[in-house]
């Protein structure tokens, strides 16, 4: 497929770098200020080099990428809340041209799911967003394969930064601030870690799952989620949990139509007690029992692999 990639962060850049290996051609690449397009395929390496050197991928207008030749738009700009712009506008532009859309950006499907689905219905294009939930882990495709009607709920560890902090605190007996500073030094936590440690990121993923499970009967946004982060979890509390054979993890849950993210105690030997930046999701099903999926929830190439899995699915299934 011919891909137009919008967003040149870790995920967008990785999709661009890996696309050829997966049999696709990148015909457009855009950042917030510029774009490079070529219907025959752009030179990804030099575009990314230019981004590093000059802060822009090319000399064209970002709009050029959306108006150029492509089959599938890969939306990989940073997630925004509320109206989910500019990602939402990019999705609309692609659907108006009957192109397929693959999202790595959580905003449109977490905050404007019904609007995005309405745009998709009016278009020949199709929407996929595997990468928005759990990075490399096949969470949404597993739900799709079971059929959302046969999924009773999900729960899991959906934020690697929060999990790194909690598992380090538990093992080393260190305070939150100390471990967070260490995570920032290691590049595991952002300079502003609030999105991760306050539970927003995990909540967005749960909201997306809730939207999929609701099958259009109800729309969820971040406002429907009950969210509590890990900022107030003390090393004392972790010590007490460990005295009881348990530990604390930031758990996201979509059960009985409600979305909740909160620190919870889990048995130390539970499949949910993953350590470091590892993520894990349990999917409850009516007939297949409980499925556990674990793996890397973040990272450029990891998340790009989920984007490319979506592209492959689009390529291999006919439009209806």
């Amino acid at each position: 497929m011919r891909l137009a990639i919008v967003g040149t962060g870790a995920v967008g850049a990785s999709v661009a770098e890996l696309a050829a290996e997966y049999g696709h051609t990148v015909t457009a690449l855009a950042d917030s200020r510029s774009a490079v397009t070529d219907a025959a395929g752009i030179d990804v390496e030099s575009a990314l080099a230019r981004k590093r050197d000059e802060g822009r991928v090319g000399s064209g207008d970002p709009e050029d990428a959306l108006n150029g030749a492509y089959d599938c738009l890969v939306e990989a700009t940073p997630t925004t809340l509320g109206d989910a712009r500019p990602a939402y506008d990019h999705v609309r532009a692609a659907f108006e041209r009957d192109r397929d859309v693959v999202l790595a950006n959580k905003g449109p499907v977490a905050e404007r799911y019904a609007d995005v689905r309405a745009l998709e219905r009016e278009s020949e294009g199709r929407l996929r967003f595997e990468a928005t939930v759990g990075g490399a882990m096949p969470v949404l495709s597993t739900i799709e394969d079971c059929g959302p009607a046969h999924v009773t709920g999900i729960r899991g560890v959906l934020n690697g930064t929060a999990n790194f902090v909690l598992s380090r605190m538990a093992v080393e007996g260190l305070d939150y601030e100390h471990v967070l500073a260490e995570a920032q030094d290691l590049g595991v936590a952002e300079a502003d870690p609030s999105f991760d440690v306050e539970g927003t990121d995990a909540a967005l993923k749960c909201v997306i799952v809730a939207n999929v499970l609701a099958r259009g009967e109800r729309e969820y946004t971040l406002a429907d989620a009950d969210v509590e982060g890990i900022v107030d979890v003390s090393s004392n509390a972790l010590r007490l949990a460990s005295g009881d054979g348990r530990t604390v993890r930031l758990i996201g849950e979509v059960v009985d139509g409600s979305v909740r993210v909160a620190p919870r105690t889990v048995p130390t030997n539970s499949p949910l007690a993953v350590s470091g930046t590892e993520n894990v999701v349990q999917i409850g099903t009516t007939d297949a029992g409980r499925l556990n999926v674990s793996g890397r929830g973040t990272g450029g190439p990891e998340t790009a692999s989920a984007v490319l899995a979506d592209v492959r699915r689009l390529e291999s299934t006919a439009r209806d």
Partner: protein
Amino acid sequence: MSETREPTTYTIRLELVDEPGELLRALRPIGEKGGNLLSIFHERGDKTPRGHIPVEVDLEATPERYEAIVDELRTEGINVIQAGTERYSESLTVLLSGDLVDTGLSETLTRIRENTNSTISDFELSAPQGSSDISSGRLRLGIEEGETGHTLSVIREIADEKDLQVVEPLYEGGV
């Protein structure tokens, strides 16, 4: 008398005179009459208006043995306030964090117990280190079957009021 019935968990609330050896004296009949002592909740600082010390004892016994234990306690002159027949078949453990001490730990625990159909089986406090006011506690409650949701909502309400954080357990069932 036949003793074929299954042992049940009971809670006995006692008020002890503040004298050395009283607690031991109160516990002796439990073992002697074939009860299995599960936990003792005993706060020395928390006295009743009459200057007695409230103690809550959870034990396991057959109904016949339980009756014999209560009779023996009364015979011994131990002040039995309540000899519950409630059955606490499930256990619920939560972590509480915040300024547990200055927000009145004893009152917090009493309110949790009184507003839920539960008994406190265990409480462990981890005191703050250094200048931090944040302490944490692990509270284990005996609750009746099916009472988890209600118990947690009462705990959350009391914790919210006192600006305490509650870390709830995640059960293996769930999804």
